């Protein structure tokens, strides 16, 4: 019974494709899976938009929207209808072709990232050997879309926002990759399916998730910081900061194209939460060995929704970082710490089982964190002002 519920989507897919001739079945299965992803994740996007508005409201001592349906649940639908019926304004001097293509490229590359996430036991759309690399490749392609959006608007401020966004995304992309590499080192494979199943073991009651190891915790924190910066979320949302650049690279977009950008941002949040869940939080495995009867896909989506809530929580708490503070943080703290984490992971692997490796690795990481926090994030002391007069 538990296994049936766990595999219910696989069984459903097999039943539907059973009606087709044998040669068409694999392709039809993949098409079915892709259609499910394309329908499911925008629905989750609507849920996330509702969660964000209500959650942020509650954190800011106010109610969120509560008029449009019970508890405001139909508010995302109202927003969708609004964005569909708004006039699509394209500036006169804007590059119309690139202006149209930018949100399309963004949404397409973000959707592609979902193809390699294992959403349950045996529930991955495409099981690639180099799945993690594929995911990062799709993430890198979104930068091109952001640049296209900013440049095609022929607006100095949009271009500035796009440049900032691209610089931020490139810097934190390195960190994202390096934190992923430490997981690959331990699990021995780039395939996300293998990484998720490697964490599906339990010592006693507790799971063997990578986050419960010293290097895993450090890696997860760095991954979370980089993920927040990759998706342009607070506190790294200077490229789309409303008080700085109106809306950054998507200032000149209205109506449905803007909705596509919004969709792209939230989908990127989902996909990177899915990746973080798979790499560090055990993917679809249950938190306690007694809870394995609950279907695996419930655990995966629960973990993803918790990650989304943490994103919203951070947005409600932290003020925005300035561009130079952002970059300093990336290159002077996060990147060196991630490199040292990589070395500590190697140490972990080669030290063999036992309490020694726990003690040594934890000690090294804690010491480096405190030291680097003091050294790397030291603010420069500005000397006395000097004036330069026009002669």
């Amino acid at each position, binding site marked *: 019974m538990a296994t049936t519920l766990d595999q219910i989507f696989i069984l459903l897919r097999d039943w539907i494709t059973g009606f087709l001739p044998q040669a068409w079945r694999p392709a039809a299965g993949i098409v079915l899976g892709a259609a499910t992803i394309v329908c499911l994740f925008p629905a989750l996007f609507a849920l996330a938009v509702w969660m964000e508005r209500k959650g942020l409201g509650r954190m800011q001592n106010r109610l969120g929207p509560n008029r449009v349906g019970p508890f405001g649940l139909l508010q995302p639908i109202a927003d969708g209808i609004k964005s569909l019926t708004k006039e699509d304004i394209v500036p006169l001097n804007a*590059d119309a072709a690139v202006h149209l293509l930018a949100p399309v490229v963004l949404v397409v590359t973000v959707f592609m990232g979902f193809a390699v996430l294992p959403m349950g036991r045996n529930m991955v759309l495409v099981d690639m*050997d180099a799945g993690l*690399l*594929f995911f990062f490749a799709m993430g*890198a*392609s979104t*930068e091109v879309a952001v640049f296209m959006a900013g*440049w095609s608007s022929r607006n100095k401020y949009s271009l500035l926002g796009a440049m900032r966004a691209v610089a931020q995304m490139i810097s934190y992309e390195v960190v994202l990759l390096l934190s992923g590499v430490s997981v690959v080192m331990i699990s021995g494979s780039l395939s996300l399916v293998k990484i998720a199943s490697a964490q599906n073991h339990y010592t006693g009651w507790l799971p063997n998730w990578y986050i419960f190891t010293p290097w895993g915790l450090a890696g997860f924190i760095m991954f979370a910081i980089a993920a927040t910066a990759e998706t342009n979320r607070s506190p790294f949302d200077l490229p789309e900061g409303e008080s700085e650049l109106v809306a950054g690279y998507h200032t000149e977009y209205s109506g449905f194209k803007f909705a596509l950008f919004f969709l792209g941002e939230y989908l990127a949040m989902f996909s990177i939460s899915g990746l973080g869940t798979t790499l560090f939080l055990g993917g679809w495995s249950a938190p306690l060995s007694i809870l394995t009867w609950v279907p695996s896909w419930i655990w995966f989506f629960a973990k993803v929704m918790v990650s989304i809530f943490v994103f919203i929580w951070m947005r409600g708490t932290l003020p925005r970082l300035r561009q130079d503070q952002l970059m300093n943080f990336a290159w002077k703290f996060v990147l060196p710490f991630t490199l040292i984490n990589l070395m500590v992971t190697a140490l972990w692997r080669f030290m063999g089982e036992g309490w020694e490796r726990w003690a040594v690795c934890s000690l090294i990481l804690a010491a480096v964190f405190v030291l680097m926090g003091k050294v790397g994030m030291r603010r420069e002391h500005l000397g006395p002002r000097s004036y330069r007069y026009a002669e």
Partner: protein
Amino acid sequence: MGVLFYLIAALTLAGGLAVVLLKNTVHCALAVTVAFAGLALFFLQLDAQFAGFAQILVYIGAVAILVVFAILVTRGSTTPVGEVFSSSWLVGLAIAAGVFALFGWAVLESVWALPHESAVPAVTVRDIGNALVGRYVLPLEIVALLLTAATIGAVIVAMHEKERTR
């Protein structure tokens, strides 16, 4: 298999042609991105997964962005008023034909021009990793040195400018 190859080839050639035929420089940069994507699809079609995804990650994710930044910084984004084709196109054609002949000869004479490809990926990521730190470790270290030199150079160039604005 053949149809897919021709489709990807058409995409890549279209991208390549667009690079030289379009007027707007940033459009050319986007077209070269399309050409890179076509190359990545070729790698994937040949089941070289690592090479394909690395191509996307590096070329589209970094080199294309670099090209675009370079165009923007050097004010090449204004539409050029001159002719798209230069006056010395005959010489250019001769050089291009010569280079093409050289590459064609090299490809046809090489040992790997087999008529049938196998469906199973012959080279996995593990094999690439083993080769990199085993047989090809010296080139790896030299490339690392080159990259370090490039990074230090970039930092020095940027720092120098900051001191000049005193």
